[in-house]
């Protein structure tokens, strides 16, 4: 009896990674991206994934990421073949008159939106087929174009219904993704229903519509949107407060969707159970905001100090001499380099903090709140043939879709 109850107890997923390790990976990555003209980003992506995967333990065994940077690099090259014609169209449109350009950009945007769905599905396939647990590969079947069309159709319905159909779209796409996901020779099964999302979704929807419009209208009434800048600096406050409230409710909804839908993912008799608290998710974004703020304050102080050293006479008088300062900009290569370096630092600080607080934070949050029931049943899963057809994530990388 004791043995049986032990077998039935769900297994807790464990995450063993730390922010410090990730910070090391990122800092080394950024340092190497400079001499490699940005190419090292494919290696950074692989290192990041190895970190996440290898630190995620299920029933004592970590996930294993077997993808290589070269695969990503080649995939990116292939994606360029798609992008060169799109780029040519962009250029042609930029030379056209207003109406033609607007129509053309609209069509290109629609094509890109469609491709984003395709790319996202392919990227998921790439990651799954390079993920192993206990020596058995995950995989994704289904058709990326089929998924893209499905998502595209739902997008049109979303526009027509002003977002009312979202719960049905979401459950439909979750079902397509998970019902096509495999672990070895065993297929996943998704049993989530749209009705599980109705309450939280329409609550968030209502709050965003009501609070959003009240905030925007109040700000507008106080003169926040007058041409040439807000007439009263205080007038942007109602809009900002409304945006924060809306953001919080969106996160509350997201925590509900992830909790309810991930808990409906089954693999044979094994099943996933995830509980994500809204306050943890909101806390993560607050922490990210704080970290970003601190990083930018430090950068700003550093920037002023550097510019002061390089162009100190501009600061010499009682007032800051803009003209003199700008003449330094023109004359000195040092200042130019400082500006470029500063720009890269701002970019790097953002992606650094984002990875540490949203990336690692979110992964930790999900892993630590996930349990898997009947893990023992997975011992009979056998390997399937290898899926080596995918050359990198291609479009997904070029389109910047898909985290991790």
């Amino acid at each position, binding site marked *: 009896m004791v043995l049986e109850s032990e077998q039935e107890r769900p297994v807790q997923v464990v995450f063993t990674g730390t922010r410090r390790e990730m910070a090391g990976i990122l800092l080394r990555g950024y340092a190497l991206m400079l001499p490699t003209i940005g190419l090292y980003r494919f290696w950074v992506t692989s290192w990041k994934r190895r970190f996440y995967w290898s630190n995620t333990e299920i029933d*004592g065994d970590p996930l294993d990421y077997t993808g290589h940077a070269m695969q990503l690099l080649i995939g990116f090259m292939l994606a360029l073949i798609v992008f060169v014609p799109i780029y040519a169209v962009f250029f042609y449109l930029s030379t056209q008159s207003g109406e033609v350009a607007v129509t053309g950009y609209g069509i290109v945007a629609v094509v890109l939106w469609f491709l984003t769905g395709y790319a996202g599905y392919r990227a998921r396939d790439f990651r799954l087929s390079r993920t192993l647990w206990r020596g058995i590969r995950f995989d994704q079947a289904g058709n990326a174009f089929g998924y893209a069309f499905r998502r595209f159709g739902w997008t049109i319905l979303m526009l027509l219904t002003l977002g009312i159909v979202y719960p049905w779209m979401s459950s439909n796409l979750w079902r397509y993704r998970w019902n096509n996901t495999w672990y070895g020779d065993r297929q996943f099964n998704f049993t989530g229903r749209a009705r599980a999302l109705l309450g939280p979704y329409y609550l968030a929807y209502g709050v965003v519509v009501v609070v959003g419009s009240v905030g925007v209208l109040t700000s507008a009434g106080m003169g926040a949107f007058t041409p040439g800048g807000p007439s009263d600096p205080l007038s942007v406050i109602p809009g900002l407060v409304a945006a924060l409230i809306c953001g919080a409710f969106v996160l509350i909804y997201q925590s509900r969707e992830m909790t309810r839908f991930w808990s409906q993912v089954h693999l044979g008799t094994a099943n996933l159970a995830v509980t994500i608290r809204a306050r943890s998710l909101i806390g993560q974004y607050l922490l990210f905001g704080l970290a970003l703020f601190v990083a930018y304050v430090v950068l700003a102080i550093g920037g002023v100090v550097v510019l002061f050293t390089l162009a100190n006479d501009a600061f010499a008088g009682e007032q800051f001499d803009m003209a003199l300062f700008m003449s330094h900009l023109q004359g000195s290569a040092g200042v130019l380099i400082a500006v470029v370096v500063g720009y890269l630092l701002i970019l790097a600080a953002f992606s650094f903090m984002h990875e540490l607080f949203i990336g690692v934070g979110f992964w930790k949050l999900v892993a630590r709140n996930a349990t898997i029931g009947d893990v023992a049943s997975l011992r009979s899963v056998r390997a399937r043939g290898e899926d080596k057809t995918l050359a990198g994530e291609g479009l997904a990388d070029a389109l910047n879709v898909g985290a991790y």
Partner: protein
Amino acid sequence: MSVPARYQDGLVAQVIDVSLDYESVGSAGNLLLRDRETNAILTRWAAADIHPAYGRKGELRLSSITQNSGARIIVTGPAEIGQVRAMLPDLTTKQAMEFSKQVRIGVIATVALATVILAYLYGVPLLAARVVNYVPPDWERTMGDTVATQMEASLKETDNFAICDPDPNSVANAAIARFGAAALGTGSPFTLDIKVVRTDVANAFALPGGKVYFFSALLDRAESPDEFAGVLAHEIGHVVHRHAMEGLISSAGTGALVGFILGDMTGISIAAGLGSTMIDTHFSREAESQADAYAAEVASRMDFQPAGLADLLNRVAEDDDFSKALALFSTHPLTEDRRVHLQALTHETPAGLEPPFTAAEWTAIKTMCGSPLKAPPSKTKLGN
């Protein structure tokens, strides 16, 4: 001595506790895997085929090229890892080889990319200068009209924009048109449309398709017909060389390049914009020199000093330090350099040439926008 490890065969999702032993077979060797519970021999891995796979800190994961791709031997603990490394001394060499292979790939890819960028920096302007000849003039003209409409609309909002002297047959406009036609010659598919417009900004530029704008704030600073004629001839040089179109093609090319480096092919990022601007500066400096050379060539047919162009630019720049700062990202060579160049380009003027404008015409041009605007100019730009 056996080393405890975990083993997965890549066929079934099971992990078995094993003990590892090294077994010599002649000069080669095998890793012998025994079930720790039953002590039964599970399998043998040839030592030569074993490679390190990625494992987190404190964990050694081994794979083999002759086993299933998911098969792993997992060793944990520093003492155990040390023992296995002692059994398989090639492991460290293989790890180093894999590392140097990655470095090689990285270096080759970087060198290749750097070559592409260099070829691009030199190739794109050359290519753009060629491609521009295949752009139908009609298309360029339509585009110029679009740009002109947009620009006039945006200037109307901010800069007190108005067209000075809309009558095309007035003394001033007729003189400008005559000068334009003479300067343009017969080598261009376009007809000129020169407009003097009232704005607070000192500027003059050529749009695609033969439209030239001369801003009143710049005209107000001109002290002699030579200066005015010099600037105008320079802009007509842009029209003849189709620089506006060439610039568009070039920036489209550099935008794609920066998008490639940053990995954001949608090109929305500010980074792409900023990067392209800095690269494009290089191209347009050549265009400016070409236009200067054209102005000098026009001056050899008419009686004016093209160096007046540089005088006017210098005067505007001195009045307005801010313009110097903008030169960082703006599209012109420094005026000091240009003056030297222009002077070098100035030919010995043959005797008996007509001056570009008569005294009466110059007076008419100077007054065509009414009295000079008092507002200090905030930015200066001369080019396309």
